């Protein structure tokens, strides 16, 4: 569902640029709104959320899609935790559909999907491992790294039960906005994948904007 935002970038209290292949880990206070902006289009932002006080309670794919009875995320979707409680709500979306079933690329899954000798290509899960190693103050461990959202990524499920990776439906300037329903941590890997069309084979930067609401 396409819902445009009335917020302007001029009124954001912070704007951070995240290069492809980099991670972004920040706290979002309850009530604040965060926007992920796909600057050049077709980028995939592999994103995890955690309760800021109890990071072991994290974004849950299963609880989120089951409670909304739909496998895709868009405006109105409530992102739920592993305890089946609301973490954030998507309040604006100019893309229309985001994947949460395709997971994140990893060195190890690259060996399965593409080639055993592609294990050393950079990947989202390696970015997350670096994030939890470099930022011990957030108290995250590998066990906390669950299944993610792929903002801007298009992974249609066929009626026959197939799962396909399609060229993105995002485009330059498309964005998604989320309101934190409690204090949360947001961990993004701006996807470095060079082997599939999720980012048009061309990883590009994204912007993260925040508003106090």
């Amino acid at each position, binding site marked *: 569902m396409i819902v445009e935002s009335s917020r302007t970038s001029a009124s954001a209290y912070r704007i951070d640029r995240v290069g492809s292949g980099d991670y972004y880990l920040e706290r979002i206070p309850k009530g604040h709104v965060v926007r992920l902006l796909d600057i050049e289009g077709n980028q995939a932002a592999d994103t995890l959320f955690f309760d800021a006080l109890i990071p072991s309670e994290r974004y849950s794919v299963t609880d989120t899609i089951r409670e909304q009875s739909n496998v895709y995320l868009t405006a109105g979707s409530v992102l739920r935790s592993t305890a089946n409680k609301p973490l954030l709500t998507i309040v604006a979306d100019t893309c229309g559909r985001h994947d949460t079933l395709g*997971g994140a690329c990893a060195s190890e899954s690259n060996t399965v999907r593409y080639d055993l000798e592609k294990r050393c290509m950079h990947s989202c899960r390696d970015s997350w491992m670096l994030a939890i190693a470099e930022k011990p103050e957030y108290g995250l461990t590998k*066990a906390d790294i669950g299944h993610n959202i792929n903002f801007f990524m298009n992974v249609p*499920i066929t*009626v026959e039960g197939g799962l396909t990776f399609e060229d993105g439906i995002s485009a330059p300037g498309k964005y998604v906005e989320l309101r934190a329903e409690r204090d949360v941590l947001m961990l993004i890997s701006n996807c470095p994948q060079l082997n599939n069309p999720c980012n048009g084979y061309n990883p590009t930067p994204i912007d993260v904007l925040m508003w106090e609401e």
Partner: protein
Amino acid sequence: MDNYVTKLDAGKHWSLKVRRGVQMTLTDLSGGSNVGMVFFNPENLYERYNAPDTLKAQHTFKLAQGNCLYSDMGRIFASITKDEVHRHDTVCGNTHASHIELMFGARNYQSDRNEWHQNGYDAFLVELEKYGLTANALPANINWFSSVVTDAEGNMILRTSAQTEGKRVTLRFEMDTLVILHTCPHPLDLSRSYPRGQVEISLELAEPVGDDDECLNLCPENQRGFMNNALYYLGAKE
């Protein structure tokens, strides 16, 4: 011991280490059963079943015969070598206590003893703690015997599962695996009362994986997954 058979009533939980080369057959004795299951590597409990990796490697939304069940480390815990159901869910998760209370009434051991209304999430937590694992260890699980379909808009529907009576699914373990399971209802279950079915679980030695194996040859991805397993056991005694 080279084989074992047991039966689990609905609403129960169990965990066990299964060695590679052993196969587990689940039989839905009553119809309408659900078996929630996750896997861990007993040598490294950080390595666990990964539903997204499993689905995207095989370009599928459902699990069925021929599919392999992957860890987050690119290895195969188990292969589905026989399957009479043809479609199992791995995206809907578990019932929480709040679901069970709404659907069938709250869990109460004082009044219901071992017929209490156990929920899948708590059932997993109990078994996980026995290995030092806590809630954050729990990945998206498999729900055997429960078929979930989607329409063109992505809406999910649980297919009525009563026709699973007597149906079986067999998992051949490709590496040593800690199996955590429960027999609590599927979270989209539409039954009017807490299910009272029964599942049989049998363990026996599997035939060796042949060159023409269906799971190995389902797709090039699975051939590479089996290669990762072979590397993991390089030098190990059979």
